[in-house]
């Protein structure tokens, strides 16, 4: 159980840093762990593809972004997306992080577009890279039965 909690804490820290740029505080981690009891279905992989995506997401920041983007379009109900949405839901209501979801950092539509352009390009790149890597990885795992 302790190791389970450790895995959850690591996952929460990784997801928080991905979404906000900061590590999770204990309050957020505690809620992420409580979610396993409150909504166990969130943590149950529904398909073998779920396992592939989760395994890739736990590697590093770049694979996580690729997996997130691939799942957004190919498997929006995948475990990785559900867990990321859960973390986002906790963060937007937590005292230390709710402002991340509220405060604009640009003051004009043009400024917004200029700032979004590189992010959009990165997202498209992540989608392409993710599809290239995760597709064969998934097929390989299925072929090997792991």
């Amino acid at each position, binding site marked *: 159980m302790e190791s389970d909690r450790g895995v959850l804490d690591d996952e929460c820290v990784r997801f928080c840093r991905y979404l906000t740029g900061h590590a999770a505080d204990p*309050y957020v981690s505690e809620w992420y762990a409580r979610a396993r009891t409150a909504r166990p279905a969130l943590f149950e992989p529904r398909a073998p593809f779920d396992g592939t995506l989760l395994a890739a997401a736990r590697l590093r920041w770049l694979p996580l972004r690729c997996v997130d983007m691939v799942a957004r379009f190919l498997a929006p109900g995948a475990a990785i997306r559900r867990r990321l949405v859960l973390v986002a839901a906790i963060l937007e209501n937590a005292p230390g992080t709710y402002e991340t979801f509220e405060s604009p950092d640009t003051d004009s539509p043009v400024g917004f577009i200029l700032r979004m352009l590189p992010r959009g390009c990165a997202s498209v790149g992540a989608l392409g890279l993710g599809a290239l890597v995760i597709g064969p990885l998934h097929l390989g795992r299925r072929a090997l039965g792991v």
Partner: protein
Amino acid sequence: MASVTVVGSGASGVHFALTLLRKGHEVRMLDAGLAGEAPVEPDRGLSELKRGLPDPVEYFLGEDLYGLTLPGAEGEFYGFPPAKRFVFDAPPGLETRNDGFEPLFSYARGGLAGAWTAGVYPFHDDDLADFPFSFDELEPYYSEVAARIGVTGEDDDLTRFMPLHANLLEPLDLDPHARTLLERYRAKRDPINARQGCFVGRSRVATLPTDREGRRGCDYLGRCLWGCPIDALYTPAITLAECRRYPSFQYEPGVLAEAFEFDESRRIAAVRVRPTGGGPSEARPVENLALAAGTLSTARIFLESWLRGMGERIELDGLMDNRQVLVPFVSLSRIGKAYEPRSYQYHQLSLGLETGRVREYVHGQITTLTTAQAHPILQTIPLDLKSATYAFRNVRGALGLVNLNFHDQRRPECRVGLAPGGAEGASPSALVGGATGGDRAKSGPMEIRYEPAAGEPARIRDAVRRLKRVLRRLGCLVAPGTVHVRPMGASVHYAGTLPMSGTARSRTVSPECRSHDFENLYVVDGSSFPFLPAKNITFTLMANAVRVAEAAF
């Protein structure tokens, strides 16, 4: 024995009861009466709650994460807050079988309007064409209800769709986004009116702008969606509390009305109730019975009573509901602008789209989504969640939602019935065992069938196309693929199963909402409406209930 027994404490039931109490009648109210918890920190704004509550995640998402919206939530743009969960909680044993309809029930104290968005829109003469009275005859009751609950609004371009009545209060303060939209509409009114047949104005809402008669005026805390903590936003629970101050009022919560019992002359003698927590049913003697349980629950009681008393399994046709279509938009000039969390959160503006027939106009409510939860929207943005979060924080103050409502009319293919129950195959008489009451074999679940009217897709397409043009003129963009047609049942404006009729046909009621089948039965909720305009019906439910109480007792 009370002279009138009312089933249900929703918008219709409480105003019916209050009118009778003021006239000196003794009233008993039977109610499931599930209650929510007292509001937390009633003077704090939403952001202050996130900063100051000991456990804000529990408040906003719920201990069991009830408020979490996960991918696959069918295009809804905001989740239901845990604080209002009690409104849709149901005791066991009330299952339904649904075909083309996703019903919502409430067993809460105050009924479904415990979770309404406070829109009050009087019907005009065209809306009332199938009713046995005109707007002029209903206007005094609209005015009376407006005085009771507090209704804001003004004489503007929407008056063509919603006639004026007395006791209108000054409108609430607009938030910056809504103000921008209204100013743009006023600058481009002529082409929008002429080319799109679209008219925009202030919403009429049952929210107090200033303190009045012991209720506080809106403090703009931004907590509307989460349950107004100061009762500035009206709910029927407020009127129920007023009823309970009368010594001649007897409130019995914790019971579900199952069926009424009647003699051979079809005079109702008692209503059978069972505890919400389970247990055997008991009879409550009645002199006059008023069903105000909401259209579907009233139908269930009527069908069950008919089955038990007459051994006949019948259906009620003519079920109506407003189709709703959600159209989210972004106001381009507001991108990058901070939003104001301390503002009124429900619709501040409304619109009407004219169609060929006056009473078939399309009604829209414009909400500037600010303090709704972000995560249901984040997951719909076609980006990874990191980029989506960044995009969202910069467009949050620019987001809005139009909720289009379409009219409905009674059609025979939209029906409510009871499935055969546990004693499947037994004859109806074996099931019911006579008309004198007592616990008997139960019927099965309620069956609800709904088929959309022919031509509905074309009507929706036309309205959405015109709305998008209007929004473009207002400087707003509708992202492709984001328009969501809600399932039937989602609007919770159910009506039509026991309609008012000037002729004494079975399964209809008189203009005073007295049953043509049972002499001392009154149906005072939406069941009695013979037509459903595109407007929210709650205000007319309340006005009609007052009218019936005045006319029939």
